[in-house]
C-alpha cells in the first residue's frame, strides 16, 4: 500500500518531465496509475469481503510513535475503490476537458498529490500519518480550486476552502493527539479498543468534540458548509473528484472510523444528528433555487454530506449500513453528474439552467447518462440510489426516539433532491427554453465514456446488488463491529419504507413541476445575507485584513534605523527581565594570560569601533566594521576554531560586496545634529553593550563541560566517519536542523527576489 501511495507522489514529482513527453496525452497516461491501483485493490477484494484485513507497517519517526501503518479493511477498501476507480475516470476525462486551459501540468501535479494523499488518508492506521495525509488533501485542494489563479473569485474560493478546512484540521490534530495521550498509542485500530482507558484519562469528550469540528469543516457541515459551493470555481473534474466523490467524504470517513469509540457516548449522537439534519435540509432547499448547474450539484452534495452525518449520528445497526451504502451510491451518481455538467458547459458554453433546454436530440449519450444518474439520485427503482433510500428510511423509522421528526426531515430533503434531479434531467434535456447562441453537438467519446460507465454501474449495482453486499457488509462492520449482516435487495415487499419512498418520488415530482412551471417565482427568491454563515466569514476576513494593514503601517514604517532600534531595545529589555536575579559576577583578570597579539587585535578592534561611530561617510563606517569583523576572525583562529574563522572572513567579504551594491541606493548618510536622537542611540548602545558583557561574564562562571560535547567528540569519527566535528554535526548528527535552515535560506532568497523584481510594472526577468 505504501508503494501505491509513493508511486502517486513520485508521478507528481516527475510530472513536469512526463508532461513534456506526453503533452496532451498526459491525462490518459496518468490514468494508468489509479486503474492499476484499482486492480490491485480488486485482488484484495475477496480476502477483505471474507472478513480479512491487510496490514503493512513502516517506521517513520519511531521515537515519537509516528509510523506509516496501513490497514485495509472493508471501509478502507470501499473508499480505495472510489478513489482509484473514479480517479481513473476523472483523469481520462480531464485529459480532454483540460485542453481549454493553460499550464495543465500544474493541474495534474496537484491532482496526483491529492490522489496519493487521499489513498494514504483512508489506508492510514496511525493518527499522525492520517493527519499528514488529511492536510495534504486540503493543500492540494487549495491549488486545484485556485487553478484559474488570475480570477479573483478562484483565489478567494481557494483561500476560503483552505482556511476553513485547515483551521478545522488544527482542531482535528489536537483531538487526535489527546486521544493518543489518553490511549497511550498512536495506532488507530488499538485506540478504538481502548475506549475505557481514554475515558478514564478524561480526554474522551474533549477529543471527540475537536475531532467532530475537524470532520465537519472537511465535510462541509453547517455552519462551515459555505466553502463547498464556493469551491465550484475549480475546473469541473476537480469538483467531481474532490468536492463530491472523495475529499469531502474524508470527514465522513473519519467520523465513521471513530464511531466504534464514540458511538453512544456523550453528545456524539445528538451533535451528529442535529448538525447533519440541519445541513441536509439547508443544502436541499438551497439547491432547488439555484440556476447554475454546478451550484445545484454543490448544494445537493452538501445535503448528501449532511445526510451521511445524520445517519452516523443515528448510530443504529441499520443506519450505519445505510450510510455505507449511500456513500457508494452518492459517489457514483454525483461524480457522474458533475462530469456531465462539465460536458454541458463544455459543449454549450453555459451552465445556466434558465438558458438550457431541448438538448437531448443533440446530445443523446450525455442525456442518457444524466437521466440515469438523476434517477439514481431521485432514488427510483431499479437503480442503486433506490436501495440506498430504502435503507435510509428503514433506519429513520427504526429509531427509538425522534423517529417521526427525523423521518420527516429526510422526507422533505428527499422530495427536494428528487425535484433537483428533475431539473437536472428534464429541464436541461427536454425543457422548453433554449436560448443558446450556438448549436451544441455531442461531446467526444473520451468525455462521455466515464460518466456513462458510472451510470451503467449504478444500474448494475441496483439490479444485482448481491455482488457488492459482502464488501459493504465488511465496511459497516468496520464502523460497527457487532453489526448484523447486511443483505441488499431491490424488493423487500410492501412495507412502510416502500410507501415512504414512493411518496417521496411523487411529491418530489409535484415539487419539480411547480419549480419548472414557475421559473420567475424561483428566480425571485433571494437568500438574505444576514442568515448566511459565509457573511460571518467575509466580515472576519475583512476585519483581519484591516487590522493588519493598520498594524503594518505602525510597525513597518520603512525606517531601517527604527527597526534596529526596536529590535535591540526589545531584546535588551527581555534579557534584563530574565537576568534580573543574577548579580554581576566578579572575575579576576590575569594580565599574564594575555599574549601580546591578543592585546594588539583587541586595541585595533576598539579603535575601529570608535572611528566607526565617529565616521562621516557610510563607506568608511562599513570598512571600519569590516575591520572589527576580521578582528573577530583572528580571535577565532587564535582560540582554535578555524571553521568559524573561515566562515567569518567569507561572510565579512560578502557583506562588503553586498553593501557596495546597495550603497548608491541608500539615502544620504545622516549626521545627527539633534542631541536627543544622539542621546537615544548612545543610551541603547551602552545598554546593549553592557548587557552582552554581563551575559558573557555570567556564562564564563559556569563550566563549559557538557555531555553533548563529549558525545560528539567521541562519536564523530566512530559513527559518522568524519574527523571534523563541526562539519559532522552540521551534515550528520544535526542534519535535520541544517535542512530546516537550508529551506529558510532558500525561501529568503526567493522572497528577496520577489520583493525586488515583481514590482508594480509587472516586468519579470528570469533569474
Amino acid at each position, binding site marked *: 500500500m505504501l508503494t501505491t501511495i509513493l508511486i502517486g507522489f513520485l508521478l507528481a514529482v516527475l510530472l513536469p518531465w512526463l508532461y513534456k513527453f506526453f503533452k496532451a496525452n498526459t491525462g490518459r497516461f496518468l490514468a494508468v496509475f489509479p486503474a492499476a491501483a484499482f486492480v490491485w485493490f480488486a485482488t484484495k477484494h475477496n480476502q477483505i469481503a471474507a472478513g480479512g484485513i491487510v496490514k503493512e507497517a513502516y517506521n517513520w519517526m519511531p521515537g515519537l510513535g509516528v509510523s506509516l501503518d496501513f490497514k485495509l479493511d472493508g471501509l478502507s477498501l470501499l473508499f480505495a475503490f472510489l478513489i482509484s476507480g473514479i480517479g481513473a475516470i476523472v483523469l481520462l476525462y480531464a485529459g480532454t476537458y483540460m485542453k481549454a486551459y493553460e499550464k495543465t501540468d500544474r493541474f495534474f501535479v496537484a491532482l496526483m498529490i491529492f490522489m496519493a494523499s487521499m489513498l494514504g488518508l483512508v489506508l492510514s492506521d496511525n493518527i499522525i500519518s492520517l493527519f499528514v495525509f488529511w492536510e495534504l488533501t486540503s493543500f492540494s485542494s487549495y491549488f486545484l480550486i485556485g487553478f484559474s489563479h488570475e480570477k479573483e473569485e478562484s483565489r478567494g474560493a481557494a483561500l476560503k476552502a483552505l482556511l476553513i478546512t485547515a483551521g478545522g484540521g488544527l482542531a482535528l490534530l489536537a483531538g487526535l493527539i489527546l486521544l493518543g495521550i489518553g490511549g497511550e498509542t498512536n495506532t488507530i485500530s488499538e485506540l478504538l479498543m481502548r475506549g475505557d482507558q481514554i475515558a478514564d484519562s478524561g480526554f474522551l469528550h474533549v477529543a471527540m468534540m475537536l475531532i467532530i469540528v475537524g470532520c465537519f469543516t472537511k465535510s462541509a457541515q453547517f455552519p462551515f458548509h459555505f466553502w463547498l459551493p464556493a469551491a465550484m470555481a475549480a475546473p469541473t473534474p476537480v469538483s467531481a473528484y474532490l468536492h463530491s466523490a472523495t475529499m469531502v467524504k474524508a470527514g465522513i470517513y473519519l467520523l465513521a472510523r471513530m464511531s466504534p469509540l464514540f458511538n453512544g457516548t456523550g453528545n456524539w449522537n445528538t451533535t451528529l444528528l442535529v448538525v447533519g439534519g440541519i445541513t441536509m435540509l439547508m443544502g436541499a432547499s438551497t439547491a432547488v433555487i439555484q440556476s447554475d448547474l454546478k451550484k445545484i450539484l454543490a448544494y445537493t452534495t452538501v445535503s448528501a454530506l449532511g445526510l451521511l452525518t445524520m445517519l452516523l449520528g443515528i448510530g443504529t445497526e441499520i443506519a450505519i449500513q445505510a450510510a455505507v451504502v449511500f456513500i457508494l451510491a452518492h459517489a457514483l451518481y454525483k461524480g457522474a453528474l458533475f462530469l456531465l455538467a462539465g460536458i454541458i458547459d463544455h459543449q454549450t458554453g453555459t451552465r445556466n439552467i434558465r438558458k438550457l433546454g431541448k438538448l437531448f436530440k443533440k446530445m443523446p449519450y450525455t442525456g442518457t447518462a444524466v437521466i440515469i444518474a438523476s434517477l439514481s439520485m431521485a432514488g427510483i427503482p431499479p437503480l442503486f440510489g433506490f436501495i440506498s433510500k430504502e435503507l435510509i428510511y428503514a433506519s429513520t423509522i427504526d429509531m427509538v426516539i425522534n423517529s417521526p421528526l427525523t423521518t420527516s426531515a429526510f422526507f422533505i430533503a428527499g422530495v427536494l433532491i428528487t425535484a433537483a434531479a428533475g431539473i437536472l434531467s428534464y429541464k436541461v434535456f427536454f425543457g422548453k427554453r433554449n436560448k443558446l447562441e450556438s448549436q451544441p453537438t455531442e461531446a467526444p467519446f473520451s468525455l462521455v465514456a466515464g460518466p456513462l460507465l458510472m451510470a451503467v454501474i449504478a444500474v448494475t449495482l441496483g439490479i444485482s446488488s448481491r455482488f457488492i453486499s459482502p464488501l459493504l457488509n465488511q465496511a459497516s462492520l468496520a464502523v460497527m463491529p457487532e453489526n448484523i449482516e447486511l443483505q441488499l435487495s431491490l424488493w423487500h415487499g410492501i412495507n412502510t419504507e416502500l410507501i415512504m419512498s414512493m411518496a417521496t418520488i411523487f411529491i418530489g415530482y409535484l415539487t419539480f413541476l411547480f419549480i419548472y412551471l414557475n421559473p420567475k417565482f424561483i428566480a425571485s427568491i433571494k437568500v438574505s445575507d444576514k442568515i448566511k454563515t459565509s457573511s460571518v466569514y467575509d466580515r472576519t476576513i475583512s476585519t483581519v485584513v484591516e487590522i493588519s494593514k493598520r498594524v503594518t503601517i505602525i510597525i513597518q514604517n520603512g525606517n531601517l534605523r527604527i527597526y534596529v532600534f526596536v529590535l535591540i531595545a526589545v531584546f535588551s529589555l527581555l534579557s534584563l527581565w530574565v537576568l534580573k536575579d543574577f548579580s554581576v559576577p566578579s572575575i579576576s583578570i590575569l594580565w599574564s594570560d594575555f599574549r601580546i597579539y591578543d592585546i594588539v587585535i583587541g586595541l585595533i578592534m576598539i579603535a575601529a569601533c570608535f572611528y566607526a561611530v565617529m565616521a562621516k561617510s557610510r563607506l568608511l563606517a562599513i570598512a571600519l566594521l569590516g575591520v572589527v569583523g576580521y578582528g573577530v576572525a583572528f580571535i577565532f583562529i587564535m582560540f582554535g576554531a578555524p571553521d568559524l574563522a573561515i566562515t567569518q572572513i567569507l561572510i565579512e567579504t560578502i557583506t562588503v560586496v553586498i553593501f557596495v551594491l546597495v550603497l548608491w541606493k541608500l539615502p544620504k548618510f545622516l549626521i545627527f545634529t539633534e542631541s536627543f536622537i544622539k542621546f537615544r542611540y548612545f543610551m541603547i548602545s551602552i545598554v546593549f553593550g553592557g548587557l552582552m558583557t554581563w551575559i558573557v561574564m555570567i556564562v564564563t562562571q559556569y563550566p563549559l563541560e557538557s555531555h553533548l560535547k563529549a558525545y560528539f567528540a567521541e562519536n564523530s569519527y566512530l559513527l559518522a566517519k568524519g574527523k571534523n566535528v563541526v562539519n559532522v554535526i552540521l551534515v550528520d548528527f544535526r*542534519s535535520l536542523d541544517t535542512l530546516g535552515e537550508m529551506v529558510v535560506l532558500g525561501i529568503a532568497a526567493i522572497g528577496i*527576489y520577489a520583493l525586488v523584481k515583481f514590482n508594480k510594472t509587472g516586468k519579470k526577468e528570469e533569474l
Partner: protein
Amino acid sequence: MNSTILSMGIKLLVPLFVIFSLFLLFRGHNAPGGGFVGGLVFSIAFSLYTLNYGVKRTKEKYKIRPLKLIAWGLLMAVLSGLIPLFAGESFLTGLWHDEITIPVLGKPGTPILFDIGVYLLVAGTILSLIFTLWEE
C-alpha cells in the same frame, strides 16, 4: 567599478576560486571547510566577476541560474535524507560505503550528498541576492 587589476585578475581567479571551493567542500568532513564555506567561496568568485562585468555577462559566460542552484541544493539534501529510507533506516541517517575510498572525496556516503546540497544552496542564495540587487 573600473579597476583594471581586479577586472583582469578576476577572469583568471574564477576557475581557481571554483576549484578551491570544491576542495573546501570535499575536505570538510575531516578538516576545516565544508559545504557552507565552499558555497560562500564559490559565490564570492562570481560576485567579484559581477562587480566588474555586470550580471548579464556573468550569466551569459557562466550560465549560472541562482534559483536553480537553490532548487538543486534542496533536492540533493532531501535525496540524501530519502536514500536511507530505502535501506530501512529513518530519514537523514548517514549511510556509508566502507569498502571503497575515492581519492579526494574519501569514503562515499549520504552526508557528502547532503553537504553538496548545502554548497549549492548557499552559492545560489548569495548569488541570487547579488544578482537581484545589482540588476535593480
